[in-house]
């Protein structure tokens, strides 16, 4: 099958620090890929390079036919980056809802401002996606009136309303109180079951085991394992993976 995300020979430097080392990765349509690893392993940077929130130092990113070379500049490059951002939706650890807009306005801001969609039509689409994440009942509230879990569900709806081909989740539950994590994971599971291609940077091993088709383990800017969750959790090859799994088993964060 033709991959929907294709990353080849991706390198990223922060100053002299080499945070991503020649990464290559294919993701098939409808596939759910979880990326785990210790902090500083480069997993968030990898995700942020896919929609160019971080400009790759070198390498090629291709999402659904839009192919962008890293490290370029100029008008054409900016247009390609814009196109790739329309193909991808992103959910952040800190939600980043727009505090000066109601829930519904948050969700339709993209379609109206970026795609020039008619407001009435955008509202219909937005309400449908709020319903998908179970947040339609709060559509006229402002973000500061929502719990963390509710905020993150709205953020997921905001990304979905742009109708992306791939969803990127950057530690979506790490800023949540433990009792609020479940509702967000449930929504993510539902989105996955509806056939969305997803890349999820997470510490939630339960979610990875249950929902992911593949689990990538990152360490020191490299992918050290890329296997199905069943295989990975049963017999980790790398001692660093073993250490990571043990740490979660013992309840460490």
């Amino acid at each position, binding site marked *: 099958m033709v991959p929907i995300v294709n990353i080849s020979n991706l390198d990223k430097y922060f100053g002299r620090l080499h945070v991503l080392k020649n990464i290559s990765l294919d993701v098939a349509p409808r596939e759910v890929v979880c990326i785990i690893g210790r902090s500083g392993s480069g997993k968030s940077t990898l995700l942020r390079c896919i*929609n160019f*929130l971080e400009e790759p130092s070198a390498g090629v990113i291709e999402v659904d036919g839009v192919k962008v070379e890293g490290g370029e500049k100029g008008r054409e490059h900016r247009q390609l980056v*814009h196109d790739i*951002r*329309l193909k*991808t*939706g*992103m959910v*952040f650890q*800190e939600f*980043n*809802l*727009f*505090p*000066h807009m*109601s829930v519904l306005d948050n969700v339709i*801001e*993209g379609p109206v*401002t*970026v*795609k020039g969609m008619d407001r009435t039509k955008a509202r219909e689409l937005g309400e449908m996606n709020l319903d998908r994440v179970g947040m339609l009942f709060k559509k006229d509230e*402002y*973000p*500061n009136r929502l719990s963390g879990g509710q905020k993150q569900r709205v*953020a997921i709806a*905001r*990304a979905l309303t*742009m109708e992306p081909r791939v969803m990127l989740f950057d530690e979506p539950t790490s800023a949540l109180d433990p009792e609020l994590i479940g509702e967000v994971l449930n929504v993510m599971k539902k989105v996955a079951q509806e056939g969305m291609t997803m890349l999820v940077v997470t510490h939630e091993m339960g979610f990875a085991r249950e929902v992911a088709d593949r689990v990538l383990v990152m360490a020191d800017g490299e992918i050290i394992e890329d296997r199905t969750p069943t295989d990975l959790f049963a017999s980790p090859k790398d001692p660093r993976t073993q250490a990571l799994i043990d740490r979660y088993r013992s309840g460490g964060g």
Partner: protein
Amino acid sequence: MNIFAKKQPDTPKSQAELIYDAFQRKERQFRGNVALSWIFLLLFLVFLFSGQELTIGGITFSTIKIDRTFIGENMVFIAGGLAETIKISLLSITLATILALLAALGRLSTVPPIYALSTFYVSLIRGTPLYLQIFFFFLALPQLGIVLPGLWAGVIALGLNYGAYMSEIFRAGLSSVGKGQREAAMAIGMTPGQTMLRIVLPQALRFAIPPTGNEFIAMTKDSALVAATGFVHELMWRATKVGRAQFHNLEALIMAAIFYWVMTLLLTAIQSRVENRLSKGDR
């Protein structure tokens, strides 16, 4: 039987409610006493200028005598300056807001000449007195063949001056909007222009409105400096004109002071209302 006795509530108040009630009572009492003291101070001030004579223990004290006929005769003339004062202030704050916003955006720019222009402007204006700037536009420019009407010389000087100070407010407002907001906007495909206009500026402005109100209040008072040009017939100019002409500066300045004070009180009340509304809800 006492039919006026208060009906007892069905359940006695909890301890928390009692403590809260006591706290509220204390607060109310404090505010009430402050208000009373204010009224007393005000009455004392009025008394001080009442021209009364009183004898205590054989010594006669007399308070300051002011000429009421002068006040009556010139009330309309001095009050006529109110409109001009308000006009200068509104025009200047508009100019200042635009300049401040541009200077703040310039300060965030990564293009060296733009950054330099912004910091140069702020440094030059903050490094010279407002009084000098007003005279510069009114007296120095004509030497170069540029003659500005007094009002505009004042507005440009005040606008430039306040713009430089207010640019700091706007800069703080812009940097109060977190990086995550920009990233979220970029992730849904917004251009840098759209991100600034739709996401960053609205949040920055909300942050900047209360301090801008303070600047506006300060400006209505600094607008008095424009009187020095002699061609803008606002409050201060009118007060000094009639005061000097009839050697009644005391009365004239007191009248102007009252006008400024009342204006400031009104503006402060309006501002705290706006602030309350902004702080409510959607933050």
